């Protein structure tokens, strides 16, 4: 029988099929740091039939908001998000990147109006999903190094 390296959780979220090496970025997106009160399990470089190698993140007692899932889609477009309730998979969904990324990225152009104190949310038009290319709705510039500009 296959040995489980990571034990099942009672309630929470399992983010699976993260590209190998990106689990720590997922933790960063979820804001997981010193103040976390529940258990977080990270498995890195796990064999995967579909991906070769993958990372997995399990967060107990927390379900993700749709913006968090959109952010994860930016760095792990093939990830699946399983919501666990009472040891059962209550919901299983694939992350999806919307056509417009609202409030999840910051424009790299320092002279963009979205970077000054105005009552708006940033908004990027997704030009292509693979490879990921996004353009700022306001200044019309393509965002390079998307991962470092996640809010």
């Amino acid at each position, binding site marked *: 029988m296959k040995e489980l390296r990571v034990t099942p959780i009672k309630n929470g979220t399992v983010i699976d099929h993260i590209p190998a090496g990106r689990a720590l970025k997922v933790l960063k997106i979820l804001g997981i740091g010193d103040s976390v009160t529940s258990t977080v399990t990270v498995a890195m470089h796990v064999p995967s039939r579909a991906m070769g190698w993958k990372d997995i993140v399990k967060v107990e007692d927390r379900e993700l908001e749709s913006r968090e899932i959109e952010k994860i889609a930016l760095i792990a477009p093939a990830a699946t998000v399983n919501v666990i309730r009472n040891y059962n998979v209550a919901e299983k969904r694939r992350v999806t990147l919307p056509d417009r990324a609202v409030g999840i990225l910051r424009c790299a*152009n320092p*002279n963009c109006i*979205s970077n000054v104190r105005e009552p708006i949310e940033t908004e990027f038009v997704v030009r292509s999903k693979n490879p990921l290319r996004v353009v700022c*709705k*306001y200044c*019309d510039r393509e965002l390079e190094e998307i991962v470092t500009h996640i809010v």
Partner: protein
Amino acid sequence: MMSSFQGRDILSIRDLSRADIELVLKAAKKMVPVAAGSRRSKSLDGKILATLFYEPSTRTRLSFESAMARLGGRVLGFSGTEGTSVQKGETLADTIRMVESYSDAIVLRHPQEGAARLAAEFTERPVINAGDGAGQHPTQTLLDLYTIWDEKGSIEGQNVTLVGDLRYGRTVHSLTYALAELGAHLTFVSPPTLEMPREILEHVKERGLAFRTAHRLDEVMRDSDVLYVTRIQKERFPDPQEYEEVAGSYRVDEAILRDAKRGLIIMHPLPRLSEIAPEVDRTKHAVYFKQASNALPVRMALLDLILGGGE
């Protein structure tokens, strides 16, 4: 008749289709006698235009104000933010919400990219972008297109050569998008460090249009119908001597014009420095002063289409 322009924002030249652009060009042609003061119009009687210039721009502001006055409308606004609530730290969004109740349309020049798009989100009134930082300046592009169309009779099929700083110049970027939309044949001439950005060249290719790039002006002179010259800025070159050499090699003078077609027109968004020799002003090729004066009928046409519904 209602025009498709009524109440519409003009934020980027890319928001305008070929049919839209052609409508503006034809409307501008009809405005020429009104712009010259030989025919009177009251088509915008009772309308108020707000011109909000967060940074000064004499030519653009005065031509919008003159355009409005020629059509019987009125103008209010500011030029430079001194003494305004902007200086007290008011957001652009709040300023726009306030100005909305004082005017029928808003012309905005702002130092930050995307400012006009933001402004348009906070008002029901039409917003015309009169330059947002290094971003868009669509009415400049429209007057450039009008100049080519008026001088050459058409835009489609013309060999248009853009020369100078093609990397940083917003004027040439917007013009390239529009010329590709209108089916012109494009040639890009620049030093290797100041070439047209890749994504713009890709866009031209996607439109199914062939284009060429060159580093020397004399190579392409012979078959150009339109030569659009832009300034090469000194600060783009760390070495002043290199700048002198590069700038000198793109200078348009009588010698280089020996190979030119008889009907070649030379354009420049102005102000120019040394990139066009003064001796060229006297030739029939020089249309850059005419180009500048075309700002008036073009902006009148646009205001009339947006506020008056066109004729």
